[in-house]
Each structure stands twice: as structure tokens, then as C-alpha cells.
């Protein structure tokens, strides 16, 4: 019956409770959405494999590496496969249609990335066609591409008009896999570059190196870099995760700002909720005094306030969490390829729930103490 009392008390001032719940829903939703944005920021690093290394030019990512390094890297003990990738940076119709495009060493690249699931026939067609491209499912859905469609890209780094034929659409092995990328043959790129910019030919952006034992990643990285020490293009080899985190660290300040804002939102709703509970507690002094007169101890009276606060917080939290999924789905869609992986994680949901509970508990502390300490004689005088 005490639970009934808690619930009915929570719903006593309907407008006040509804407004508080709406505030909580918005806060928990915003917290979840911002948390998902942060997760999306780290999605590349999260999706990285421990059996892949990335070798790039030690000076900067914008400096290429000679294609001749491929064989040398392949011969390093512990290396199982080597592939290449060049950032293409083309424009599809207009600059607004941004999506990542890579010129890759077709066969080896997809072997190193088993999370990109391509139908066998599509892969064969891709390997047969010099102008062929494999595109992610999300990307294909965004632009309505089908196998066989021709995709024109205007080069920015590699000037000129380029046309590709969609030969396959890859799906992600799981929800964390980025399916918004566009892959085509490095050979096709190199051929055109050789004609148009001969000095830039036979180079790659990065080498993707498959290794047999993740525990040897540091040792293999050192061995690779050692081979090219004092050459014209020294290398820097690191795990794929470290490579991806390197990108994230460039925007670390934004991530920190997002995190701060998300916790500020929770702090604000905590203050609003504490105010609601304080008002309720003050109005019910006589009722708490009556309960105490009847023999209810201070702990039980305080627990009623905590219960009421928690009930409101849990209702708001639950609705907020439930609303996060559809809102995040729409938000992710609206963001297009900016956040290729935009999923509400289990961790985010747990954090949202923890925040809702914390808001409920913290907001009730002062009012609960006040209710527990209410003097019976004084409280009873507050009636009428």
C-alpha cells in the first residue's frame, strides 16, 4: 500500500508531474543522443581489428608511400597479407553528397576486411571490371544505387571526371560495421594518374597489413618501420585502432564539449526535479507529521519521498530511453555519411538509466531529510 501511496502522491499534481517527466524525457533523450554522437565518433576505432596494422608515411598521412614497399612488408615475419588504400576525395554530383571513397587493392583488401560482406558473384564481377566499384548498403540505399549503375565522381585530389560501375553492394557483418563507403580498384586510379600526373603514380596512401598474432603487433610494427628507416619515405606503423584514434584525437575538444553538455543537461534536470520534490515535500508537511504521529519512523517517511522521486525519474527515464532509439535513427539518417555508424549502444542505455536513477535519488535527498525531520507538533499545525 505504501507503493500505492508513493505512486498516487507522484501523480497528485498532474501538470507539475507531467512537466517534470517531460523535462526528464528531454534530458535523458538528449543525454542518450549526445552519447550516441560520441560513440559514433569512436565507431571507426571500435570497429578496428586487432589483427590489422596500418602503415603510413611517417611525416604525414597526406604524403604517399611507394607501391614497392608492398612486397617488402609482405616478407616481414608475422605478416599474413598486405593491401593498400588511397583516399580519393571525389564529389558525387555536389559537395553536399559526402562519402568516403577509397582506391584499394581489391582482392586483398576485402580479404583483410571480412566484416564487409560481399556476394561471391559480385566480388568476381568487381575483380573482372577495372572500373568496378563495391559500395556499402547504406550508401547504395541513400543514393538508390543498384548493381550495374554508373556512378560519376569529380576528382578533387585526383582531378578529372571518373566513372565507376557498381559491381557489388556490401553488407556489414554487424551493426557496428560502416556501410557507407565506396571502394574501387587502385589499379584503375594508378593507370589514370600515370597518364595525368606521372610523378604521383605508383604510390599508395596507406598499407593495411594483416598479422597472424595480435600480441606481436608492436614487434611487427617496429620491424616494418625499421626496414624503411633513412629512406625517402619513412613509415609509421600502428594498430588500426591507434590509427583511427589518431583521427578522433584531432577533434577531441568537440567530443569533450559534447560530453560536458550532456552532463550539464542532466545536472539541470536534477535541479528542476529537486525543486519539484522540495515543493511537494513542503506542501505535505502535515501529512508527513500525521504519518509520524501514527508511528511511521523518519526512515519510512523519508523513503516515501525517495520513492516518489524515483517513480517520477524512472517513468521519465524509461520514456526518454525508449524515445532515444527512433530519434537516433532519424538523427543518424539526417546526418548521412557524417556518422556512418550511428547506433544507440547498450552502454549508452545503461548510462541513461543510471542518470535517471541518480536524478531521482539526488533530487530527493534534501526533501526526504526535511520530511524525515518534520516536527510532528509543528507539522500538524500546518493543516487547515
Amino acid at each position, binding site marked *: *500500500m*505504501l507503493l*500505492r*501511496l508513493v505512486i*498516487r*502522491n507522484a501523480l*497528485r499534481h498532474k501538470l507539475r508531474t507531467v512537466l517534470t517527466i517531460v523535462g526528464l524525457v528531454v534530458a535523458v533523450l538528449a543525454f542518450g543522443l549526445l552519447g550516441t554522437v560520441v560513440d559514433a565518433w569512436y565507431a571507426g576505432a571500435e570497429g578496428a581489428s586487432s589483427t590489422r596494422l596500418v602503415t603510413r608515411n611517417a611525416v604525414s598521412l597526406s604524403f604517399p608511400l611507394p607501391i614497392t614497399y608492398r612486397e617488402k612488408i609482405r616478407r616481414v615475419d608475422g605478416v599474413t597479407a598486405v593491401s593498400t588504400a588511397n583516399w580519393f576525395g571525389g564529389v558525387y554530383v555536389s559537395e553536399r553528397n559526402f562519402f568516403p571513397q577509397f582506391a584499394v587493392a581489391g582482392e586483398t583488401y576485402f580479404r583483410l576486411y571480412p566484416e564487409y560482406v560481399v556476394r561471391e558473384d559480385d566480388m568476381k564481377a568487381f575483380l573482372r571490371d577495372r572500373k568496378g566499384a563495391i559500395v556499402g548498403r547504406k550508401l547504395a540505399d541513400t543514393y538508390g544505387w543498384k548493381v550495374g549503375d554508373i556512378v560519376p565522381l569529380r576528382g578533387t585530389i585526383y582531378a578529372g571526371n571518373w566513372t565507376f560501375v557498381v559491381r557489388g553492394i556490401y553488407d556489414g557483418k554487424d551493426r557496428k560495421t560502416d556501410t557507407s563507403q565506396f571502394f574501387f580498384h587502385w589499379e584503375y586510379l594508378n593507370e589514370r594518374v600515370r597518364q595525368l600526373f606521372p610523378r604521383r603514380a605508383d604510390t599508395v596512401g596507406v598499407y593495411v597489413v594483416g598479422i597472424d598474432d595480435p600480441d606481436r603487433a608492436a614487434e611487427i610494427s617496429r620491424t616494418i618501420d625499421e626496414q624503411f628507416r633513412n629512406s625517402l619515405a619513412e613509415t609509421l606503423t600502428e594498430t588500426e585502432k591507434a590509427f583511427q584514434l589518431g583521427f578522433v584525437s584531432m577533434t577531441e575538444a568537440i567530443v569533450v564539449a559534447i560530453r560536458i553538455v550532456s552532463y550539464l543537461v542532466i545536472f539541470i534536470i536534477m535541479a528542476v526535479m529537486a525543486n519539484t520534490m522540495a515543493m511537494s515535500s513542503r506542501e505535505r508537511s*502535515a*501529512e508527513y507529521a*500525521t*504519518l*509520524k*504521529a*501514527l*508511528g*511511521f*519512523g*523518519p526512515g519510512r517517511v523519508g523513503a516515501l519521498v525517495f520513492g516518489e522521486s524515483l517513480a517520477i525519474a524512472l517513468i521519465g527515464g524509461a520514456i526518454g530511453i525508449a524515445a532515444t532509439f527512433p530519434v537516433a535513427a532519424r538523427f543518424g539518417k539526417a546526418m548521412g555519411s557524417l556518422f556512418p555508424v550511428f547506433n544507440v549502444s547498450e552502454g549508452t542505455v545503461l548510462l541513461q538509466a543510471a542518470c535517471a536513477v541518480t536524478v531521482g535519488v539526488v533530487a530527493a535527498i534534501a526533501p526526504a531529510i526535511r520530511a524525515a525531520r518534520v516536527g*510532528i*507538533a509543528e507539522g*500538524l499545525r500546518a*493543516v*487547515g
Partner: protein
Amino acid sequence: MNDPVVEIRGLAKSYRRGGQIVPVLEALDLDIGAGDFIALMGPSGSGKSTLLNIIAGIDKPDRGTLRVNGTEIVRLREAELARWRAQHIGFIFQFYNLMPVLTAAENVELPLLLTPLGRGDRRRRAELALSMVGLADRMTHYPSELSGGQQQRVAIARAIITDPTLIVADEPTGDLDRVAAGEILDLMVRLNAEAGKTIIMVTHDQRAAERARSVVHLEKGMIRTETDAP
């Protein structure tokens, strides 16, 4: 007088108001026998409500002793006092003090939550208590759906449900019209006469006081007279 259920000796209480100490009760002695129905009367500020609160264990005296049913309650700590009140005191307040979000039956059941009784037993007792005060047909009504007299009857049912040693009533008819007040007093007289309940009632109303077995007049914190009601 029957064996005293309440024994008060040298009870004193004062309040601090605006830096001044205002004495409310001064060296008060009083015995209340089991089965008595006492009306405490006196002008405002005479200390009658303070005395009632101290007897009921919701206020503490500065000095003196107070034994209720053999227990020296002045020495009890807050948690012990809360348990003691739950077992020994039934409260009737001027403004009924019902929980507005609970039904009549739930309000009556409230004190039983502090007992080991199960849900079914609690509900049966609440129904019985409401039947005793003539509200068997109002079990599921909320206080806002009841008249003042009916609310006070619910409060009386709540006061008697634990079969307390003592029922304390602070101006139980103060918020009621004449007819409703009469009904409430009838009910209290019946509780005293038929169920043998010891009742201490604070009132300003001479007519209400006349329904008690004896009247204690307080003035300036001291007992002026103790008379048997006519």
C-alpha cells in the same frame, strides 16, 4: 477512579519565542484512569494542546515524569517513541488528517502497515472498523468525496484500528457543524462506554466537554479545576 493509565507528575514545558522563554505548562500533576473520557478545556494558550501532545508522545516536556500504561515515555528515544505511539495511541485530529490520495479503507489500514498483519487481515480489520463508525458503504471513497463528519469518522476508525491504550482527540468537532459534531461525540461516547476506550479530548466547545465523564480546566499552564461532567 480506575487504576491510572496516565500518571503525570511535575510536568513542565516552555517555548522560546522571539528570544523569550514562555512557560506553557508548569509543574502539572494529573492522573487519568483506565476507561476515562476526559475533556481538556481552557482558553487559547492555556497549554491544553501541548499537554495532549506530550501525553501522546509527539512532544517532549522540559521536566517531570509521564507514565502511560506503566511506560515512562519521556525517556524513550524517537524510534522507540514512534513504535510506542503505533501500539498505544489512536489520534483524532481537528482537520481529520487523512491522506487525500488514499481511500477511506486505505486510510484506516495505514497504522496496520506497522504491524506484522498480512494484506487480507489488514483489509478485514479496516472494513470492520469502518463498519463500526457507520461507513461500511464508503470504503472506496476518497476523503474529498466524503463530508467533514464522514472524514472524521474515518479518522476515528483509523484511531481505533490498532486497539490502542489511549485515544487522543484534538478539537475533534472543531471543524464540524452541530449535527456532525453531535454524531462524532455520540461515537466517542459509545467507544468509551461500550468498548472501554480511554479518551482524552481537547475542546473549546462546552457542549462537547459535557459529553465527557470529567472535565479538566487548564489556565496558564496549570490545572484550575477538575470536575465530573454533568
